[in-house]
């Protein structure tokens, strides 16, 4: 994989900030046609909700890629709300079906990264559901209050894991599986068969675990060379599994073995390059 650009300007903590009472930072992505209109109607009807959320309008909820969501978590958000049209109401016909599939992936990646998946919420809000919107935001804000402040900026391991989840979300393998999920389940595969959704979920979950672990290995070994055992300990993952990942990453020239010290080889992430 090519070196990925991170657009995020990571803001360091300022002095004295810790003293301040923590207020959840929540970002909401709303589709232009239903949810954003529902949020407007909420205002028109004067339904109140907490002030923490900052809303970003997109044309369709499907625009909110896993990469965007993970990048927002990397930037320090405590919670993300995605709002779209109800299924079958999408202004672009099937956009929200894709959103649904992608949110499954995002949640799985969050679990892998040790971020409570409750920090990400997908809601269908129609243009006439102003009250629902206020309820959703109120509930979600309370939920985030309970979950507490995101540790992304406080804990380097969490930060690395979120970055790894972000990288994993951008891999061809996950993009391909999730990108085709809707059509494969709904319209049938190359053989004209319809796949069992449970089974397909299992395939995606396994791939997500793989890709996350690989990305995390690369993330960790980017900072300093690491051995299989060290990686296994830090990542809390069986060493044989780590080794299998390393074998593949070396094949793809994404990680290189450094000169072994004693009997334990260490690996370092290749700075540039990968599949060209």
């Amino acid at each position, binding site marked *: 994989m090519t070196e990925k650009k991170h657009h995020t300007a990571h803001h360091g903590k300022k002095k004295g900030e810790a003293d301040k009472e923590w207020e959840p930072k929540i970002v909401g992505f709303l589709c232009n046609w*239903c949810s954003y209109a529902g949020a407007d109607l909420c205002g028109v009807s004067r339904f109140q909700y907490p002030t923490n959320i900052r*809303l970003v309008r997109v044309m369709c909820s499907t625009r909110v890629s896993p990469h965007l969501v993970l990048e927002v978590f990397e930037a320090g958000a405590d919670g993300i709300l995605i709002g779209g049209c*109800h299924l079958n109401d999408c202004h672009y016909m099937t956009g929200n079906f894709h959103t649904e599939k992608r949110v499954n992936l995002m949640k799985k990646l969050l679990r892998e990264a040790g971020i409570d998946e409750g920090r990400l919420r997908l809601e269908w809000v129609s243009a006439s559901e102003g009250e629902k919107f206020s309820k959703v935001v109120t509930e979600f804000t309370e939920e985030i209050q309970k979950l507490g402040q995101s540790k992304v900026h406080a804990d380097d391991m969490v930060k690395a894991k979120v970055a790894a989840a972000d990288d994993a979300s951008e891999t061809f393998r996950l993009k391909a599986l999730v990108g085709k999920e809707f059509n494969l389940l709904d319209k049938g595969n190359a053989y004209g068969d319809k796949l069992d959704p449970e089974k397909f979920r299992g395939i995606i979950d396994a791939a997500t675990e793989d890709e996350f672990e690989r990305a995390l290995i690369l993330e960790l070994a980017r900072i300093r060379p690491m051995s299989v055992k060290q990686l296994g300990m830090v990542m809390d993952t069986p060493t044989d599994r780590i080794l299998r990942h390393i074998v593949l990453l070396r094949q793809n020239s994404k990680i290189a073995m450094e000169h072994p010290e004693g009997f334990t080889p260490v690996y370092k992430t290749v700075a540039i390059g990968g599949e060209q």
Partner: protein
Amino acid sequence: MAATDKIGAVMVVGGGISGLQSALDLADSGFKVYLVEKQPSIGGTMAQLDKTFPTNDCAMCIMAPKLVSTGRHHNITLVTNAEIMAVDGQAGDFKVTVKQRALRVDASKCTGCGSCAQKCPIETSDEYNENTKIRKAIYVRYPQAVPLVYSIDHDKCIGCGICAEECKAGAVVYDQKESTSEIQVGSIILSPGFDEFDARLKGEYGYGVYKNVVTSIEFERMLSATGPYFGTVMRPSDGDIPEKIAFIQCVGSRDEQVGNAYCSGVCCMYSIKEAIIAKEHGGDIQPKIFFMDMRAFGKEFDEYYNRAQNEYGIEFVRSRVASVFENPETKNLVVKYVEKGEPKEEEFGLVVLAVGLRPPEDAVALSKVIGFELNADGFCQTTVLDPVNSSKQGVFVSGAFSSPKDIPMTVAEASGAAAKAATEIASARDSLVTKKEYPEELDISGKEPRIGVFVCHCGINIGGVVKVPSVAEYARTLPNVAYAEENLYTCSQDTQEKIKEMIKEHDLNRVVVASCTPRTHEPLFQNTIKEAGLNSYLFEMANIRDQCSWIHMHEAEAATKKAKDLVRMAVAKSRLLEPLENLMIDVNQKALVVGGGATGMAAALELAKQGVKVNLVEKEKELGGNLRKLHYLPSGEDPEEFADSLAKEVASNPNITVHIGKGVKDIEGYVGNFKTTLDSGETFEHGTVILAVGAQEYKPEGEYLYGKNPNVLTLLEFKEKLKKGEVKGDSYVFIQCVGSREEGHPNCSRVCCTGTMTAAIKIKEKNPDAKVYVLYRDIRTYGFREEYYKAAAEKGVTFVRFEDDVKPKVEETGGKVQVTVTDEDTGKEVVMTPDYLVLASGTRPYTESEALAPMLKVPMTKEGFFLEAHMKLRPVDFATEGVYLAGLAHGPKFLDESIGQGLAAVARAMTILSKKTLEAEGIVASVDETLCDGCGICVPTCEYKALEIIVDKKDETKKSLDLNIGLCKGCGACVGACPSGALTQKGFRDEQIVAMIDAALEDDVEKQEVRQ
């Protein structure tokens, strides 16, 4: 433009969904439109609906974009709160006198902020919510109303003066007078809709007496999230959630006692929908629907009906309810009815009356003023062959005003009427529309962003909560902000001038407005900056009213902080904005019509009359299609004669090239630029395609001795014999639903019941003593077709209902056909030995349709009919732009409905063919070819078929992505799918979104906070 004495403008009377569709089609194809509405805002009945069948779409969600487009269309003038006083002149040149009642609010000043209504001390009942809610004496009909202008209900207003004090825009004008104006138009379209039947007239159901008896439209509001109970179904008597709800059908329909013999056509479906939604809102609610015949005749309606029974467990009882009584203690309602001969009663918590459709109250007045005829039931008179023409030339009709009908049929007719209205004045196209001229666009490339920020008080709507001056001051401290100011109303006309001045004075190259919602106001400000020479995409909005001051009314400080955050986010994005180009696509202004039946010929002729060159392709040796197989129409016209006259007209029209006995081999290209190859090898180019390929009668081989006994015939075969005088016999049995409403073909074929009535009546006319039996499941003679059912019954035709799963048995005994059926009503077996057994067999698509679908990248239903872009609001469109469908290829339907759709397809096609170039969307996907490796994962995510993988001709391993900007709608689905980062969405690039997020999560607001 050719010299013409016709007026290139159309008046559309009635601003419901029908009027909106007609107005938009006409305004988009070169005509000026005056949309006259009697209410202060447009939207009609559909705006009151919660959901719509059979997709359960949220009505407001799908309608709002059309409302907004109509409201801001530069070729549509809304004339609201108005009525037509007089019409002079003739087709092509009418002078219409319109009276506009006083709103007592200056529409040019009112910003729709609503602070007047907040303070108004007078409460009255809210008609939009069917009086289930309260509104004020100064009000808008509903929150999303277009135009968003408040008006004073003069009957209720006490003139206290509070609203005028409250209105910072000075829009309240107590002494405003009604005004009269004369408007010149070439055609008139009538779409005033319908009124609901007054349920008080059915005293036995207790409406108006018992609190818990409500009408279906009231119930619709009760289901709605914007209704009185926020979507929870409650009893008006005590607020309890009813455990059981009874739906009573045919209230004011199919009822000669109240003078409405016709069927209202929509109630069965809307009641099923309401029952389903009620069930969805509260899982324990048990709805029960009392009906006579379940008329689920539309596209995929029967599947909806099946789901209601099997998935939702909704109960259906075939019975006309006799009466309803209230238990005075519990306020529950006892419903009395007779089922299978047995009197029964049952208690319910709530009763919903499915009220029928009546002609609008002002129908008679309209018909007199304009001079068109009403039918016996008071609806606008039309004919089967001219379904959208009124009796007066140049005056057309659509929607429920000509007969009760559902939304998809209404929308199709609305487009159809637009086509007819346009043909009348085709020579005056483009003569009255305005094209806005803008100054040349300033080149901002390489320039540092210089952002202007305009923060709106919106009277006190924002300023009353958010400290606007401190927001404006804060904006000035943000990087790249060159200018910031606050306005009382940023949307007012004088502020637009101010914005333009400031752009010049401060050399601004980006503008941010912090006010209300971009959904309604972005186009206004985009237009302003365009007038100042800036590309309209160099604009960003911060929604600090609807999504800030209004939802944090009691938290001034937090709301102010949030407003600053929102401004900072908008500024952050605006820094990264870039000019976007609306790509222009050349249009080949010719048309292709596939199919030479009634639909295809009607479409081709209408296009040709509007000056469009048409290629009409028909696979058979002769034009006419199913017209030549019908033999009789229930209304009396001769279909064969009609086919001949259409074919003759087609042949003599110089704009139409007919390709007979030929099939389409290939169609390639996209909107405005198609190329077609026929199987004969001929090719031609065109800008749009209309698919009117028809359908056929199912041949029920192997069923009911069909094909084995010569006296077992399909309905069309029988009619042919009848027409030729070859039918000899005294007894006839018709079996309905042959090949319809059964496994594999779950839906209704719509036309067979009426077709059976036509044949049965003909038999009886020829031989009054003939014994005619019709074995049926539901008689679906909807709308005015009920009259044929009645006529057949009056002539002595016997109707025997059989259970859905117990088909009649047909055997042969001694060369004679013997039919055995169990009469559902009596439970007794009836044996008949008719001379003829007629099978009313269903409508099936042609298998050839399947070959067309992949060529045009259009979808089909599982039954093999074409599937339109949206079942409710885009009945003749495909998602693929420039391709339309009409007639039986869309699904079974009657001749008038097919012609209506054919005309509708013309109006839709003309929105493209009337232009030399098409303007594509600005917010579209773009692909970085250096990053794309042609993996193709994005392709299936595009609903609009804008993406295609091209394999390199020389090197097969090299693939690239072809993105057709002309087809892209800018949803961004592909962007999220792309694994290589090659796809981006203009206006919503990752960098732009992330810049907003980073700005949102910045923590240093306090640092920059300016002391008050």
